[in-house]
């Protein structure tokens, strides 16, 4: 249907164009973000290289991102295996509980965690940010990994045992290779989610800002806006690249996990 296709394409344009504002104006040779365009420049990107505060925040985001990705994938892996390979009473309720944070506004999550820290006498810190990020990333990891386990003939592990391999070797020779695409996809997606997350970091990071928190702080200075655009453009590019990679990896094994009768 011609018109429907046109509509879909227009929709895609609507999705992407506003976001393209960032890269376009990051090369614009003007401090003002307005039409008309004033010529090409890379000075905003060069400014980023000198911005130590930004780089420090970047470092924090990477630390938090890696920690979150690793922890949420590990927790998600264990939980996914538990739910798909064992008969657990209340599995549905457990999954629902784990997914609950997706239905609660971030600000409520953030503020409740602040209360928790206060009650426990703990300071705001990057560790607190990781905890907050786990709340929203574990459900994602779980979704990806459950799908992966379900598409995985459970007989394969039994066959490996039957053929003489103990549980450790079975994991290494069969489970791990087949789960790997799912694990990689989960790591990538949870990393991106954590890296881009603003609100929880804003309330919980205290003095150590993550990159989105740093950006938020720059927004009230109009002269810094073009550099923010440059930074934003870089982040966007990286995020998109990682997402494409994650989707590609996730579907790599999708055909390969069940081949049976």
């Amino acid at each position: 249907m011609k018109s429907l296709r046109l509509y879909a394409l227009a929709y895609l344009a609507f999705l992407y164009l506003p976001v393209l504002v960032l890269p376009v104006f990051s090369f614009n040779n003007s401090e003002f973000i307005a039409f008309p365009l004033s010529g090409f420049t890379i000075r905003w990107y060069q400014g980023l290289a000198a911005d130590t505060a930004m780089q420090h925040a970047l470092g924090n985001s990477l630390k938090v991102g890696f920690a979150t990705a690793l922890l949420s994938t590990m927790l998600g892996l264990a939980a996914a295996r538990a739910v798909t390979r064992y008969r657990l009473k209340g599995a549905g309720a457990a999954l629902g509980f784990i997914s609950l944070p997706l239905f609660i506004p971030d600000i409520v999550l953030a503020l409740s965690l602040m209360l928790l820290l206060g009650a426990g006498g703990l300071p705001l810190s990057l560790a607190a940010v990781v905890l907050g990020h786990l709340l929203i990333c574990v459900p994602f990891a779980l979704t990806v990994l459950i799908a992966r386990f379900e598409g995985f003939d459970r007989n394969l592990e039994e066959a490996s045992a039957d053929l003489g391999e103990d549980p450790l070797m079975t994991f290494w020779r069969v489970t791990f290779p087949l789960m790997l695409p799912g694990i990689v996809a989960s790591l990538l997606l949870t990393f991106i989610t954590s890296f881009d997350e603003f609100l929880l970091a804003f309330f919980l990071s205290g003095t150590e800002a993550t990159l989105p928190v740093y950006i938020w702080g720059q927004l009230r200075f109009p002269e810094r806006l073009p550099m923010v655009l440059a930074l934003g453009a870089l982040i966007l590019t990286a995020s998109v690249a990682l997402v494409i990679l994650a989707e590609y990896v996730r579907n790599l094994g999708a055909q390969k996990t069940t081949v049976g009768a």
Partner: protein
Amino acid sequence: MAQTGRNSAEGYGLIAPALGVMALGLAAPLALLLITSLKTQSGLGFAQGWTLAQYAAVIGRASYRVLFLRSLLISGAVTLLTVALAYPVAYFVAFHARRKFVWLVALTIPFWTSYLLRVFAWKIILGFNGLINSGLMRLHLIHEPLSFLLYNPFAVVVTLAHAWAAFAILPIYVSLEKIDRSLLEAAADLGDGALRRFLRITLPLSMPGVIGAAILIFVPTTGDYVTPQLVGGPKGAMIANLIEVQFVGAGNWPLGAALSLMGMAMVAVIAGLFVMAARAGAKAAR
């Protein structure tokens, strides 16, 4: 190993860490939130004793009620707009697209980019000296910048609709994809034209996906902070902005807690009513 039946203990052990984290990060904090909402602020701490005064304040002040109402209306508008605009695209990908995977990835990528940056992009676009205004003025279509674009509910709705646009497609797509194509063939065989087939078969069967998408969008949107803060201005402020004020500096934590819980309760009730109404409507339609 994949030994069913016997090793439930192992299974529980595997899921325990995730549940533990959730208990620590979700259950305990929410319990604390509830407790806090029943206290009053006293200097930097809380006064002794319990009270429902915060909830009374929340319900009692007209400005708060207005804020709740506005948040619900904005969220409702965003949900409606997003779902309505997304449906045709989901339909297209489910029924007419040849490279579905490519389309789906292309449509979901924007969702994975930084939400903060997307809102910021809209701030640039809608601003007084922003892209729309400067562009229209350069083209001599207007002589003065349009002021209605930013710092009002309109900006909030547009920005949020754009933010959720990618996300709404997936649930609707999934339920459309599941529809047995032979049902449509049977309907055609029994005399229904394209429009009738859509209205009598496709639309009703895709409703679970539509409702799912609506709930997934409505619930978090009412509590959104970033968009109203960046593009809403005073006229477009929502509950979250008021809540934040209570917690920052020497605010009123108990009031903030009460506002949070009231907000969540309200949204849960409305979402629940919506789902019940939708189910009843589906039953009646048979």
